[in-house]
């Protein structure tokens, strides 16, 4: 185990994937942005420059190219940069890649990995603060990964690049600098296995991506008040580990879901509906959703902060729930 940043772990995963599989290639070589983490990619460019293609600004074309190449056995990592650029290639991402296996009666697969940074990154304003995962979750055939820790980002990426199915892999600008222990070399974190990031008996907080960090902060505050929150991270939305989530709610009897998508039909909506449908008998009180309101994200800091789920909002909701 080595202590490293989320960004470094992601790059490490990419490096390992390229080193271990000739079929892996990268389209658009700056998945950790053009900021302070950019230099992390230098060693990847040094050792694999002929397997990195920095394309024109043509999201639709590279999204389709990834699906087409994957049909012929390639393992392309298609970096769409800020994940909201996926909207420009939406047809290829949700209507081509995930349908290939089904439409071909199981004869073909298109195991492309689409990648992008999602969420409110800070002063990104309405068009660069989006989280497409809820919309993507409505595309059958597409896997969705939302790693929240350095260890997960590397392990889930290596799993995605060996999976037989297409994946949308979402990271978050505000996660790139967080540190954590990461195993060296090749390892895979399987999709469809939730992780209890913190055990607790009083309330289950389900969160993904950056919201796991927020939930863990809230849990620390609550612990000082004698409330033990259990923080559960599904890690992937498709496949979705209902079992671990339901088991947690069975133990705690209370549910809070924290999500950076807008409220209506967001990720929290689907998780809450699933628990209500299958775990109603475990619930001692109505479930609570803490999400972005259905409002575009504004540019200026105070009006941006107002809309984003944070630890204080989670703490207040849990206090209210246990009152």
């Amino acid at each position, binding site marked *: 185990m080595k202590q490293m940043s989320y960004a470094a772990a992601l790059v490490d995963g990419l490096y390992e994937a390229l080193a271990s599989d000739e079929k892996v*290639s990268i389209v658009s070589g700056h998945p950790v942005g053009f900021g302070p983490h950019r230099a992390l990619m230098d060693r990847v460019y040094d050792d694999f420059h002929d397997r990195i*293609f920095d*394309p*024109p600004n*043509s999201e*639709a*074309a*590279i*999204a*389709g*190219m*990834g*699906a*087409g*190449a*994957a*049909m*012929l*056995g*390639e393992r*392309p990592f298609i970096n769409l940069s800020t994940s909201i650029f996926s909207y420009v290639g939406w*047809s*290829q991402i949700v*209507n*081509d890649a995930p*349908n*290939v*296996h*089904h*439409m*071909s*009666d*199981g*004869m*073909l*697969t*298109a*195991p492309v990995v689409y990648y992008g940074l999602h969420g409110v990154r800070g002063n990104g304003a309405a068009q660069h603060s989006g989280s497409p995962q809820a919309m993507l979750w409505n595309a*059958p*055939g597409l*896997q969705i990964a939302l790693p929240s820790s350095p260890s997960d980002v590397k392990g889930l990426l290596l799993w995605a690049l060996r999976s*037989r*199915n297409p994946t949308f892999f979402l990271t978050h600008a505000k996660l790139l600098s967080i540190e954590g222990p990461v195993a060296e070399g090749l390892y895979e974190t399987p999709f469809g296995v939730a992780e209890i990031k913190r055990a607790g008996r009083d309330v289950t907080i389900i969160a993904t991506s950056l919201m796991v960090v927020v939930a863990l902060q809230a849990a620390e505050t609550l612990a000082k008040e004698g409330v033990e929150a259990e923080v559960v991270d599904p890690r992937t939305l498709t*496949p979705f580990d209902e079992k671990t989530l339901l088991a947690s709610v069975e133990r705690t009897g209370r549910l809070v879901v924290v999500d950076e998508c807008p409220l209506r039909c967001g990720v929290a909506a689907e998780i809450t509906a699933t628990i209500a449908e299958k775990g109603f008998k475990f619930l001692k009180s109505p479930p609570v959703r803490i999400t972005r309101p259905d409002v575009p994200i504004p540019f200026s800091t105070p009006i941006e902060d107002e809309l984003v789920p944070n630890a204080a909002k989670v703490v207040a909701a849990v206090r209210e729930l246990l009152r």
Partner: protein
Amino acid sequence: MSSNSNPPLDKSTAQRMAERMLVMRRFEEKTLDLFQRKLIPGMYHLYIGQEAGGSAVLDALGSEDSLLTNHRGHGHVVGRGSDLGRSFSELLGKANGLTGGRGGSVHMCDPERGFLISSAILGSNISLALGAGYAIKRSGEKKVAVVFFGDASLEEGITFEVMNIAAMRKLPVLFALENNNLGAIALHEGGYSASNSVLKQFTRIPELFGVKTVQLLAGDTLASKIAGAREAVDYCRAGNGPVFCELQSVHWPGSNMVFAQMLTGVMDLGMAWGEREPQGEHAGWVRDHDPVLRMAREFIAAGLMSRDELLALDRKVCEEVECAAQFAIDSPLPEPQSAYHHVFA
């Protein structure tokens, strides 16, 4: 292309081309018949009128090449040699269709013959072909990725993005534009969608990206079309980068409306040599532009096939098509529970 400068066809090529074009035509005539008998659910698009250019390109390909087509793809699939019974079964939504009734008319797919998935979204199949070209180039193999698309795809932005990248990376993609717009009736005249572009000379688009262009004009001989298609495929296969091949055809009047009608009648080879004369409003298309009749006249004139050989071949094809259609009619529908299969590999 000039028809004078091309080498004459050999008999085996002529035989192959004649059979392919007859299969394409008779398959589609039967498709329309099956639809009118309410045996085909959903939407479909016929390939009638485009057989010459498509056949020429298919003839120039090797067995290892990758192909993608669009919503008007029956001709490409049966022209490549896919099983006729399983092709009809797919149109009828039967369990033993090419894709088990999951894809239907617009997603024909036959990986054994190099046919990757057919995206019915204009431009999307072109981006998938870009990926096939990317994969071929990475593998270092001397293969070609061919994508067939219509002139409407040149109204989509993604097509331009794809040409830019294919040219930039010198990817072995053959863009086969099937321009069936000649003589088409536009929406405002009561027809189906026809080309809606200020550009009338479509080869100017690839030229902007420095992509080599080859035009197979509607009036070219088959010998000329085959030479042009071979030139395009060979250029691509040699690693020179993408080629844009325009396959022109005169719009078949039967697909002027949303659901095709046999306005020109079932094709009668005797009209190729004046045994019978085309009649009615669309006699001109049959007389001057029907690619199958033009093929018959060209091959007879060149001494490549006789009337009797053509008639015998046509009888054989008609029997195969009839038999294949009956196979599809007699085949079972998919089990409802199979709807859940193949979401994930």
